[in-house]
């Protein structure tokens, strides 16, 4: 006989749910029947490199910062959820000659890919579209399984991408991360730690960027006022489209810093190459 602490017991249970989700992903139906799914469960301190790199990228990108801050907070509170990484090599074609990738045949696709394979912020390409759809079905089954086990089902591009860059699931061209948890109510929606990261003004700016016309005054003059405050007609703010060299420079620096961190974690660079 034993008495278990409820929170501790549920936190430990999350790993079992992660295993169940990996099982569900592997059992997902497919269209191409050629997907070779890879999975890995990463827990606790092993997630630190991912969060560190994510925070670096987040210095100039809100969506990566959004996740980095949330993970940092969960780690601090001892509530770090295990993360199920799902990945696959989506660059191998389904051999259907369907044309969705932009090439007439899978042969032409392979010829191009063998010379032009490259990486963006989240994955390697070019990609076979049907493989990407099959991979989506596998990820969806993992999410549905998580939901059935009363855990969160917020599958993430951000943590998956940095995991791939850090060398997890070697050979995968695309990796997504499904945190199994945290325990508690809707913590990915209601992120406590995010409350004070963006002030009201920045929150409003982000919202306006999503739909400026909602706040736009008469545009017939060719230089519309953007109503950014209650007395918007006094000392007005104008809508303007311009190049932003400062942002670009900051972005390039962030990417470089993140890349250096990744190379250090992967043991490619050390202090001898570049002093920390």
């Amino acid at each position: 006989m034993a008495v278990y602490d409820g929170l501790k017991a549920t936190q430990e249970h999350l790993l079992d749910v992660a295993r169940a989700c990996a099982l569900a992903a592997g059992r997902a139906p497919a269209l191409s029947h050629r997907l070779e799914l890879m999975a890995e469960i990463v827990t606790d301190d092993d997630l630190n490199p991912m969060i560190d790199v994510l925070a670096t990228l987040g210095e100039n990108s809100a969506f990566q910062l959004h996740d980095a801050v949330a993970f940092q907070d969960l780690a601090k509170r001892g509530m770090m959820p295990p993360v199920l990484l799902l990945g696959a090599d989506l660059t191998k074609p389904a051999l259907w000659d369907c044309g969705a990738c932009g090439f007439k045949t899978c042969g032409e696709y392979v010829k191009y890919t063998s010379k032009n394979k490259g990486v963006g912020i989240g994955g390697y390409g070019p990609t076979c579209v049907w493989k990407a759809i099959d991979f989506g079905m596998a990820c969806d089954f993992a999410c549905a399984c998580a939901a059935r086990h009363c855990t969160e089902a917020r599958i993430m591009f951000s943590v998956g991408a940095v995991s791939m860059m850090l060398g997890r699931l070697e050979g995968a061209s695309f990796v997504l991360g499904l945190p199994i948890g945290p325990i508690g109510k809707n913590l990915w929606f209601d992120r406590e730690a995010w409350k004070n990261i963006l002030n009201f003004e920045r929150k409003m700016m982000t919202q306006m960027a999503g739909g400026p016309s909602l706040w736009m005054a008469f545009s017939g003059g060719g230089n519309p006022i953007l109503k950014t405050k209650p007395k918007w007609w006094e000392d007005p703010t104008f809508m303007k489209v311009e190049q932003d060299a400062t942002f670009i420079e900051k972005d390039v620096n962030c990417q470089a810093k993140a890349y250096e961190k990744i190379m250090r974690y992967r043991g490619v660079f050390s202090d001898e190459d570049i002093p920390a």
Partner: protein
Amino acid sequence: MARIHIDEWPPYSPSDQAKKDNVLIVAKLMVNAALTAPFTGGVPGHEAEIAYGQKELELIAREMERLAHKEVPERLKKPFLYEAVMVRESDVVVFLGNKRAHETPMDVGCGLCGGEPNCSFVYERLNHFSGIIDVTDRSRDTAIKGPVCVVRAHDLGYAIGSALWVAADCFVDSKACYSVGLAGRNLGFCMNSEIVAGILLGVASKNPYADIPPNYHLTNMSKQVDGIRKITTITRQIPNHPYHTFDPAKKAGSKDPGKEE
């Protein structure tokens, strides 16, 4: 008092029709699940359409057979023909299409489409005005007009996955097919999408989408049943007899009326 009798045989009899009505309910619930599946950025971008009824399904099967013989590569010919049989054995077909992959990319520079840290691979190969893609030219050189935004297409997988999860939860057999989706799209199902998947739904004691023998388009049950209809009529014309007055099975010379050879 009302009675609903349900039996899977004969096909399209009132008893089978009652079963098909049940499957239609599941199909509708599957569409709900597809629309609430997790999508990149939570952005809506999918459409669904349901095909139901013998004639409707027959038209889809025939378009698949046309594709098999005229358009798809040789390695897809038999899968397309076999899956056309499965369409005829299905109760309902659900189409799920992604409206965004070919028209409104995610524009995030993920790298999946062309391996570059921007979306140039797609935009350099499509007709667009400052990033607004023109889809009004709907002519195609390939089955699907590409390239498409891969991260958007990836979303379609979640829609299909959640729909299939619901089907499995309701113990309805299902199969998602490229062939069915392509045929349906050509016939105008989910017409705002370039990439469409077709989901077959069937309720039968034997899963209609598993255990497929060779040349299934020629050896399936409907062919076998027709084989019986084709032969039995001929056969019965030979051992006929004036049954009102004569029973050939009766033992000759016997006084016992029940006694047979």
